Every structure is written in C-alpha cells, then in structure tokens.
C-alpha cells in the first residue's frame, strides 16, 4: 500500500440513523503533513476525525490509516488506535489517577512497557508540555490549559505517528488558549502528522500545510493557508471567514 500517506479517505459517507453526516468525503494526508479543519458547528468535522480512529464507524467508502484499512476487525482497529493519538475538547483525563499515571497508563497497560521506563517516558512528555512539576497532582487540581497539555502528553506517551485534535482550545478560558496552541505548534515543527479541528485562524496560518473547510458534511474547499484566507473561492467559505474574523 502507500508508504507516503498517513491517512487516506476515499468516498466516505456516514449516517446517524437516517441523517447523513458525511457526504462522499475524499481526503489524503501525507506523512508529516499538518491539516487544519474548520467549518460551522454541526458540519461533521468531529465526526470525520473520529472516523480516523474508529470512535465512529463509516458506512461507505474506505479509510486507510498508515496502510491499514479500517474495517470491522478488532485487531486492525486496535493497531490503528495505538498509533493514532487523539486530544478532545473536554480533555477526558482519567480523574481518579495522578497526572503521571495518566501518562504511564497507556505504555504500561497496552505496550507492556516496564514501570520504570513508563515513568521515564511520561516525565519526558510532561517536560515537553512544560508541566513536569504537576506530575503528582490529580487532574482536577490543574487549570484547563494545564489539563489539556496533560492530555497531549498522555497521547504522546503512546508514541503515535498521527495526532488528531478535536477543538483542543474551545473549552478553555482565553488566557489559556495560547499555552496549548504553543504546545501543539512545537509538536508540528517536530514533524508530527496532525489533523486539527480548530477555529484559531492565527494558529492555522502559522502551522497548517493545508486548511480544509467543511460544510454540511462535505469538504467545500481546501488550500494552503495563504490562499485560503486571502482568496476563498466559495461563497460559503467567505461568509464563514467573515463571521469568525470579524471579532
């Protein structure tokens, strides 16, 4: 299969009951590419990226992650999930274990890494997101921005090849958005393949190789950020950009 592409989406459609959320979506993400997905609320952005690690199942078309086609086979899905990290809007940290354990859990329980090595690895990634001093606290004792950075460290501790971000800063107070975006930017500069759903247009300009605009379950427009922001082609894109850039 393809050695170059991290994610291939071919003619994918998805329904929730009778309601079609994704209409014949096509998308290819090369290894090391950084994609920003934007679009109005309810347009299917979350659903699309949740299909990439099969938190949602698609009904038509093919999704191929790192050469593995996503079908109803648990073994393949588990393999894909181990290699694809996901960061959620509401962090979804494990509240009953410490920050450090949050980051050690995956390697220890899934990858069979020894406790010492898992601890070392967890500390490494906590340093990377610049909160090693919070390691022994519980998630609820941290600020929103810190929690989201822990969530990023938790995903990284599985050493994924692809990272998915679903509006990682939407639930944060304004003063905490910057620290999380900085962390993601650092990651981007290190060459991590990532797909990030966000409305932070400054961030998109700075890191994205490509911006994708979705509306009503379709990819309406995609392009390099320079072109996308200065010359949007579709009416729908122009309207959307004028709405979020007005402020």
């Amino acid at each position, binding site marked *: 299969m393809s050695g170059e592409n991290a994610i291939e989406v071919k003619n994918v459609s998805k329904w929730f009951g009778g309601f079609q959320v994704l209409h014949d979506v096509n998308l290819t993400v090369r290894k090391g590419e950084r994609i920003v997905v934007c679009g109005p609320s309810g347009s299917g952005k979350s659903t699309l990226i949740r299909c990439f*690690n099969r*938190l949602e199942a698609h009904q038509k078309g093919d999704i191929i992650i790192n050469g593995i086609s996503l079908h109803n086979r648990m073994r393949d899905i*588990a393999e894909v*999930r*181990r290699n*694809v*990290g*996901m960061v*959620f809007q*509401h962090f*979804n*940290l*494990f*509240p*009953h274990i410490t920050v450090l354990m949050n980051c050690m*859990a*995956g390697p220890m*329980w*899934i990858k069979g890494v020894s406790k010492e090595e898992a601890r070392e690895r967890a500390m490494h990634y906590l340093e990377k997101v610049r909160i090693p001093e919070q390691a022994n606290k*519980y998630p*609820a*004792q941290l600020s929103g921005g810190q929690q989201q950075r822990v969530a990023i460290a*938790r*995903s990284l501790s*599985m050493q994924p090849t692809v990272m998915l971000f679903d509006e990682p800063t939407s639930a944060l107070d304004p003063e905490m958005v910057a620290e999380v975006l900085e962390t993601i930017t650092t990651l981007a500069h290190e060459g991590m393949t990532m797909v990030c759903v966000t409305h932070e247009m400054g961030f998109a300009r700075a890191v994205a190789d490509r911006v994708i605009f979705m509306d009503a379950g379709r990819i309406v427009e995609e392009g390099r950020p320079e072109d996308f922001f200065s010359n949007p082609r579709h009416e729908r894109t122009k309207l959307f950009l004028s709405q979020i850039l007005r402020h």
Partner: protein
Amino acid sequence: MLYIDTVESEVLVHKPWFVGIIFALVLALSLMFNLTDTTLGELMRPVIGDPQASGLYGRFATGLVLAVLFCLNIVLIGFAQFKVQVAVVWVELLSLFLAFFNAFDLSLPFIWEKLPILLSQGLFTTIYVAAVSIFFACILAVFGAVAKLSGNGFAFAISSFYTSFFRGLPLLMQLYLIYLGLPQLGIVLDAVPSGVLALSLCYGAYMTEIFRAGIQSIDRGQWEASRSMGFGFGLTMRKIILPQALPVIIPPTGNNFISMLKDSSLVSIVGVWELMFLARSLGQATFKHMEMLIAVAFIYWILSVCMEFVQARIERHYARSKIR
C-alpha cells in the same frame, strides 16, 4: 446538610407557643397514663405522700413536674452547639431505651454468662456468612450490570430475568427453595452454603442495579479516551470505569451490607448457628427469651454502627480525589 438560608430563624424550641404545646402535650399524656407508680412518683413521695393513694392530685403533680423538666430540657438543649445537642439527645434517647428494657426485669448475669458463646460462635458466623455473601453478590452484580448495558439481547434477557426473579421472591422463599427444594432434585447443600447462596443471589440482583447506575454515571468521554488509546473493554472497565464508579457504588453497597448482616438472621431458619439461632435456642432452653433477644439485638445494632463508621471513612477516602 440541607442548604440552610443565611437569614437565621429563631430556634424552634425557644418559641413560646412551641414550648407551650409541648408542655400541654406532656401534661395531658401523663394525666392519661398514671405515672404515680413509677420511679418519678416514688421520688415525689415527700410532696404527694403515698403515691398509690395520692389520687388525682398526685397524678397532676407528677405530670406537672415531668412537663416542666421536659420543657426545661428541650429549651436548654436549644442553646447548645450542634455537636453537643446531638450527643445529649442521643444519650437521653439511649437511657430511655435502656430504662424501658430494664422494666422487663431482665436477668443480667444470664446475659453475661451467654455472651461469650454469642460472640465467638454467633457473631463470627453472622459476619462470615454476610461477608462471603456480599463478596459473591458484588461479583454477580458486575456481570449482571455489564450484561444489562451490553446491548446483547441474550445477555440482557438473562440478566433482567435474574434480577426480576430474585428481587421478586421473598428471601425466605429463596432460602427454602435452595435448602428444601434442591434436595428433591438430588442436590443437597449444607445449611451454610445454602444461606450464602440464597443471600448472594438475592443481593446480587439488587446490586446489579446499583452497579449499572454506577457504570452509567461515568462520562462517555472516559470511554472515548480509553478507546482512543487502544484500551480494550476489560481493561477500560477494570482500570478506568469501575474505579471511578466506586464512589457511586459504595454508599448503597454499604447499606446493602448492613441490611445483609441483619437478613443473615434468616438463615437461622435452616439451622445455621449464627446470632439469631443461638438467641432463640439459648433463650428457649431456659425460658429467658427476652434476655437473649435483647442481647442479640444490641450486638446487631453495634455491628451496624461499626459498619456505618467504616462506610463513612471509605466515602471520605473517595471524596478526596474530587477536591477542586
């Protein structure tokens, strides 16, 4: 605690109309039930003369004294701090209770004599039966709850049939079915295993609902995060969902355990030598029923109080990781 308003209202027991009503009630009651032949009447001999012969005057005088004492008592308690109030009222109620039993003219030496066997044999068996049963009930409950939530028709049907059946039959009936019914099919169980089996099955059915509610109380995001990291179902359940469900599961499980400690007295019916069985057999042999029953009642009560303390401690432990 209720969420008390910051506008303080006057203490109820300091309102004249309330104290007046209580005063009138106590007086009326003691006029109705002649109290002159009680200890109180005896104490009032200097005022009313021979209690037996004091007639209406004696009744009224004792009633009056009792009403005044009672009202003074509640008014004074009303001034105290919360903790002091609780302690004083507890002690008063307990002494009233003891005074009530004392009126039965119980033989204390007999109780002391039988206490060692009650504690060594009876208490041990009671705790043993209850602890083993609650353990199996919890295991049944985990599987029952997962089956109910699984979306698998077979599993749901089996689990809901199980809970419906064992919640629908009286526990005593289940015990008879196992101890007396099964032998007809050639399956003979001893008394203790029969009791444990009946208690486990019955409480497992109740606790299935508790575990189901606990599992359902966990945010979907926890499942999603676990799944996105590649955790399988068993791992997610053991390491992520159940530990977080414990604070929801433990309080009602504690209640069930306390209630099981007492329901384990039912297995005395099939001849298990636990507290209730000993109380009845020791009492019957000597016609000292009340002594044994009251002694055992207090043992059950103390046991439950201990369990409540343990439960409160565990709950406090789990409250800690929730601190914001």
